[in-house]
């Protein structure tokens, strides 16, 4: 490994000051007179509930939005950042909440193209050499030749961060970068970034919902509430309770009971039975190589695994987004392929990851998106005619019960904050009786209140007799919620254990591909 200095630019970390920034979207005041100061080499965390205005603040900062008011100072000089290109020239880079890689290009191509100002002919030999040198300085490995689109969320996010480092940024803005990373992956990524900050090579502004990361890496925090400055402080003096209190604006009730004791699962035939399921990835390579699993009513089966081992494809097959190439999927004993009729008959619902991409039509209204499950059933529709009134009534009900922050049900869903898109989908999928629920990384981007609420809803669905398949890259989440945990590796289920007997070290062993060693030894 080469020393980190070689990666970093000569210019080093920059000092950032934001003064009195405001931004409205129509009637919505997303930001109201927010100020923020980060010294060079600072590791600053920006906290707040879903929809508090965190993403808006940083998007204004990098010129993605134009602020209505406000001043930005870099190294004590006022700068005008009119668009992301200006920001990039100042050495400011951002990792967005959503992914920005070009799916059809390989990781290497994505990195090289991101450098911009490319010559007419790219000397790939030279570029590869430069990339390999750079990768050698990193504490983790990334497949350079895979198309970015085929990477799982965790891998994609790592590439996004690496891309920014490769571009030699002076200020790195991370908008919920670790939502899809395992704690270990998050530590790798943030550890690297933190090292650079400590050596005053990089200033970091991070948006996160995970207090663990704040206490481990940040040296100061700023909290937003409903678009306004709600407090700030230095670490380690500031406690988690204090931060949470600033976020919600009132003392936070201690977690009542994180997990009520599970009732044992009744010994009934499985509701979901998957046998020897095979499927191919986007590029014709097998990603599922004979998956066997079953989920009974009233049970949560957790699927653990390092991202990129076929969990994504498994969820896609079950939600009808990917065809299978072999094996059977039975729901209530009947073949299931994700058609609408089958979904209705078996009451199958799903919460896929990246909801804006997988479960919403971004350019259509909140009301439309909330009706996706039952637009063709009474009371929303009769004889093929849709009742706008019923549709709006349902959407308003969802917005209220699930506290979705939206300018209105007619707003395009892509204008909602990341967490609120997730809530809108949750509302749609969990407002009807559920028999089978397919869930992937359900708390991606949710604030701590919403995480607790979502987990409670999943448990409630389970207790009401739903069979839940929960794919998550967060082991803690699985240990908290699941009745049984199965580990997926290289397109197969390689290990399975009841949750109460689960041992984190053992799970980790299998997640890291440990079964292969065992096979070899036998």
């Amino acid at each position, binding site marked *: 490994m080469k020393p980190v200095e070689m990666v970093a630019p000569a210019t080093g970390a920059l000092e950032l000051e934001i*003064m*009195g920034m405001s931004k409205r979207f*129509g*009637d919505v005041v997303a930001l109201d007179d927010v100020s923020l100061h980060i010294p060079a080499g600072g590791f600053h965390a920006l906290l707040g509930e879903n929809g508090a205005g965190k993403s808006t603040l940083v998007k204004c900062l990098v010129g993605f939005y134009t602020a*209505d*008011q*406000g*001043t930005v*100072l870099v190294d004590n000089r*006022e700068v005008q950042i009119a668009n992301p290109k200006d920001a990039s020239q100042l050495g400011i880079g951002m990792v967005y909440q959503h992914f920005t890689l070009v799916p059809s290009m390989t990781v290497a191509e994505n990195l090289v193209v991101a450098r911009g100002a490319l010559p007419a002919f790219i000397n790939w030999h030279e570029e590869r050499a430069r990339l390999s040198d750079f990768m050698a300085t990193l504490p983790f490995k990334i497949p350079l030749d895979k198309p970015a689109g085929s990477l799982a969320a965790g891998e994609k996010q790592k590439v996004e961060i690496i891309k920014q480092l490769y571009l030699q940024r002076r200020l790195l803005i991370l908008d919920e970068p670790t939502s899809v990373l395992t704690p270990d992956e998050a530590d790798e990524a943030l550890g690297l970034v933190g090292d650079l900050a400590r050596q005053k090579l990089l200033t970091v502004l991070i948006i996160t919902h995970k207090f663990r990361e704040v206490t481990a890496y940040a040296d100061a925090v700023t909290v937003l509430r409903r678009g306004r400055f709600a407090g700030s402080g230095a670490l380690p003096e500031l406690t988690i309770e204090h931060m949470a209190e600033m976020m919600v604006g009132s003392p936070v009730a201690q977690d009542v009971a994180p997990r009520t004791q599970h009732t044992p699962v009744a010994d009934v035939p499985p509701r979901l039975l998957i046998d020897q399921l095979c499927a191919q990835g986007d590029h014709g390579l097998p990603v599922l190589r004979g998956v066997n699993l079953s989920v009974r009513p009233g049970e949560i089966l957790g699927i653990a695994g390092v991202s990129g081992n076929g969990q994504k494809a498994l969820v896609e097959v079950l*939600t*009808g*987004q990917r065809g299978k190439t072999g094996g059977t999927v039975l729901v209530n004993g009947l073949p299931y392929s*994700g*058609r*609408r*009729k*089958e*979904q*209705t008959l078996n009451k199958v619902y*799903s919460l*896929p990851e990246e909801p804006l*991409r*997988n*479960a*919403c*039509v*971004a*350019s*259509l209204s909140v009301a*439309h998106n909330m*009706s*996706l*499950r039952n*637009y*063709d059933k009474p009371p929303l*529709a009769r004889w*093929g*005619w*849709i009742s706008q009134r019923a549709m709006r009534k349902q959407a308003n009900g969802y917005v209220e019960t699930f506290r979705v922050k939206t300018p209105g049900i007619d707003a395009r869903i892509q204008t909602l904050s990341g967490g609120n898109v997730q809530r809108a989908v949750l509302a749609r999928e969990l407002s009807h009786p559920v028999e089978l629920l397919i869930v992937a990384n359900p708390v991606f981007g949710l604030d701590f209140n919403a995480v607790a609420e979502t987990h409670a809803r999943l448990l409630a669905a389970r207790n009401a007799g739903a069979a839940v398949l929960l794919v998550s890259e967060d082991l803690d989440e699985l240990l908290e919620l699941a009745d049984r945990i199965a580990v997926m590796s290289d397109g197969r289920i390689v290990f399975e254990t009841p949750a109460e007997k689960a041992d984190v070290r053992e799970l980790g062993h299998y997640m890291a591909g440990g079964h292969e060693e065992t096979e070899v030894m036998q």
Partner: protein
Amino acid sequence: MELTRRFLPLVEAVGIPVMALLVAMLLFAGFVAAVGQSPLEVFVLLYKGAFGSSFSWQNTLLRAAPLILTGLAVAIPAQAGMVIIGGEGALALGALTSAVAASALQGASPHWVQAGMLLSGALCGGVWIGLSGWLRQYRGVNETIGSLLLSYIAIALLNFFVEGPLKDPASLNKPSTAPIGDANMIGNLPGMDVHYGLLFGAIFALVTWVILKFTTVGFALKTVGGNPRAAQMAGLRVNYWIVGAAFAGGSAAGLAGAIEVAAVQGAANASVVAGYGYAGILVAFIARQNPFAVIPVAVLIGGINAAGGMLQRRLDMPDATVLVLQGIIFVVIIASETLNGRLRLIKFKPLSPVSAAISAKT
């Protein structure tokens, strides 16, 4: 302020195309001036030729009838996220099959013959464009290119059959299929010199608009067009919807071909390939793929077409002058698409305290 915000989408939907039309007119005026004519005179003649008298209105509406349908051939597939430009071919094929149907049904009552012609024309056009939807979903062929290539084939087929196996020996200087017979021709709307095709087109557009706006079919189609992955998650069979939307669009163009034969030409011949399919692309884009808006826009473009003759007679400008205007409109409309969602009331940006202090110092 509140009102402008509420109606911003509508203002945008109408305002942007209207602005684009005005800009295109301005550019066209520049062109006219450059070739040594008075723009004012040209615009006056354009207006007169399109809407100036009852005669020019009839001329305009006659052209609007097929344009409504070929506009729909673009607008319907667009709901499902497709850009289809092969309407001309579907129209040609619709014309050909309707002529074949007419000769097969000779002897039946005129209503049956007409129904048979229109249905077979629509069906064939639908299959043709449906094929480009199929190619896209199952073979990965871009539907825009696919529909264009299929369109060339369709036009070639029409020419082949009209000049070859299906040629009526009596049609000497203009090869045609056998005439469908005067009794079988579709007549005019009561009190007008415009055939029933205009009404059929308008009904097709209105029904499409109602379906898209008020029914589950429209909901599903919008979902499929907006995000196929989300549609799959909702259990919709995306492939079927895509092919279906392509079929529906193609059937509109095929119907246009059948109407041209049954109401205007009286036989299938090369005259039906008169650019209606391509002008339909323009109609759909100006109408922003809204089936309802397709009707007035088709009348507008029909009017511009109709005025071509007037320009030729009065100013001795070539017929193609109006095509230049159409081309300019098309480019400007496409360019203005990017303005979508950026139409904002220009706002005064207050000076920040710091920049105020700095500018005071200097």
